[in-house]
């Protein structure tokens, strides 16, 4: 009787508590280790406020004439890179995403292969993809488009694969029972179920790609980053300010457009 009265109720088992503690401990240890070992040159930090003040002073007033001269064309190029890159990546990631979904393609080695493609696409940054494609196609918008497309395969393919794996079995079983071919099962069973999330993934990625394609020019892969790079190399900070504000406005508009379309579709 007494024993039951004094029974202790713990939320976590000792093992869970230990693991949580280990996680907190390791996080703090990582932070302390990083702070101790990171290379900081204090002389550079002392004049940071003056440098920043100087920076913003040079940015103002903006050289608005620069917009007409080179920013506008570069901006259209950036939007084209982002859109074409996204479309290309959709074309490439649909097959990879389908193969990655274990319920659609029940062949383990193929699933693994698709996962490998997705992981390597995601782990290499857009700028690094751009550097790779510049080595192949030479500098310019083509390298940028390919970079955007290859970086997006991993993102779109992974999310599409996950959406396919979460599809309900009911319609698929029903179609299979009528003797439908594999292609029909996919087009009429799986696709209608994942279509809304696919559209939303594609829009989301386009939004990200607009932002990413703005920096591609820094490594020579075309777009508005080129205009910024040129202005920076000439220390024309008033022109850099024009480019930065343009990027800001475009990114905000892209976000508003995407969320408006998404609200209408879903």
């Amino acid at each position, binding site marked *: 009787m007494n024993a039951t009265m004094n029974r202790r109720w713990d939320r976590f088992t000792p093992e869970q508590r230990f*693991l949580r503690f280990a996680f907190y401990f390791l996080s703090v240890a990582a932070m302390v280790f990083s*702070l101790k070992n990171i290379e900081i040159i204090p002389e550079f930090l002392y004049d940071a406020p003056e440098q920043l003040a100087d920076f913003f002073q040079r940015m103002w007033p903006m050289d608005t004439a620069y917009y007409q001269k080179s920013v506008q064309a570069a901006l259209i190029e950036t939007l084209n*890179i982002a859109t074409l890159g996204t479309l290309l990546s959709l074309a490439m990631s649909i097959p990879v995403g389908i193969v990655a979904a274990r319920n659609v393609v029940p062949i383990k080695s193929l699933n693994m292969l698709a996962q490998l493609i997705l992981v390597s696409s995601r782990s290499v940054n857009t700028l690094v993809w751009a550097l790779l494609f510049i080595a192949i196609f030479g500098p310019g918008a083509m390298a940028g488009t390919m970079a955007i497309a290859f970086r997006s395969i991993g993102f779109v393919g992974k999310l599409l694969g996950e959406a396919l794996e979460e599809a309900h079995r009911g319609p698929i079983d029903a179609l299979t029972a009528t003797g439908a071919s594999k292609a029909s099962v996919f087009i009429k069973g799986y696709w209608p179920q994942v279509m809304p999330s696919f559209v939303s993934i594609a829009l989301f990625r386009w939004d990200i790609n607009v932002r990413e394609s703005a920096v591609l020019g820094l490594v020579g892969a075309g777009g508005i980053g080129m205009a910024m790079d040129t202005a920076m190399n000439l220390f024309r900070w008033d022109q850099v300010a024009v480019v930065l504000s343009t990027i*800001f406005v475009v990114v905000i508009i892209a976000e508003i457009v995407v969320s408006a379309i998404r609200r209408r579709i879903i």
Partner: protein
Amino acid sequence: MSDRDSAHALNVARVAFIPKWPLRIGFILLAVYVVWAMGQLDVTWARFVDGLSAGQKFLGRMFPPNFSAEKVEMITKGLLESIQIAVIATVIGIGLSLPIGLLAARNLMPPWVVWPARALIAVCRSFHEVVIAIIFVKAVGFGAVAGIGALVVGSIGFISKLFAEAIEEISPKQVEAVRASGAGFFAVLIYGVIPQVFSRFLGFASYQFDSNLRHSTMIGIVGAGGIGGSLFSAFQRFDYDFVCAILLSVIALIVTAEVVSNYVRALFNDNLALLDYLRNRRVAKLSREKSAALGAS
């Protein structure tokens, strides 16, 4: 409009799948756009074919990757600096985004606080980490500090926004209950709000750590520390076998980080211990395979 509707009504009986004309027109417009944009960007088949032979040469020079002793030392040093940048930036970024996210939550804060906070988040979000890194390199000079600053700004843009959205989605019942008991603002936060958003917040934080790690391997391109600097200079020296070695190490690091953060999420959200986690994954995999096999038969 009414014409089309009646046409539909007539066709419904006979046509199984009614053609969607707006959709088709949309696809045609898209195709026209693609052709136009490819012309604008000078994307041509000839360039693509040219590129293939260049790509072959390029790949040939990348392999075998150069993992000689001095290169390995450079890679370790760079990766370690990248990890340090990511850790510090994530911690500071999360520390700053908690209050900012809270200020941007419309259900807890008055509008005159919400809009400035949202504007700050929008500014932080709309610039790519590399662009912010350029500004920080100008302010604090080359090196890891600039990288930390850039990633902190990026983290604020991402986590604050999601955190604010998570707070806006909480159930008001607990908040009202705590408030009804006479609790002050901070007590309401700690007992009414935080418990509802903690697990989602942990998800954002671990995702942000992954994303910071990815970016920290690249901001070196503009001189903000980490392995990106070595990568960029290796590209410029056409030292492609070293490029390949760096890329392989970066991929290995990022995949490891992703596995670890998946486990941390499982530990905190589902209370899974390590062995349970491994076992559960196996069980989940088995049951998935079984259902797939049933589907195939």
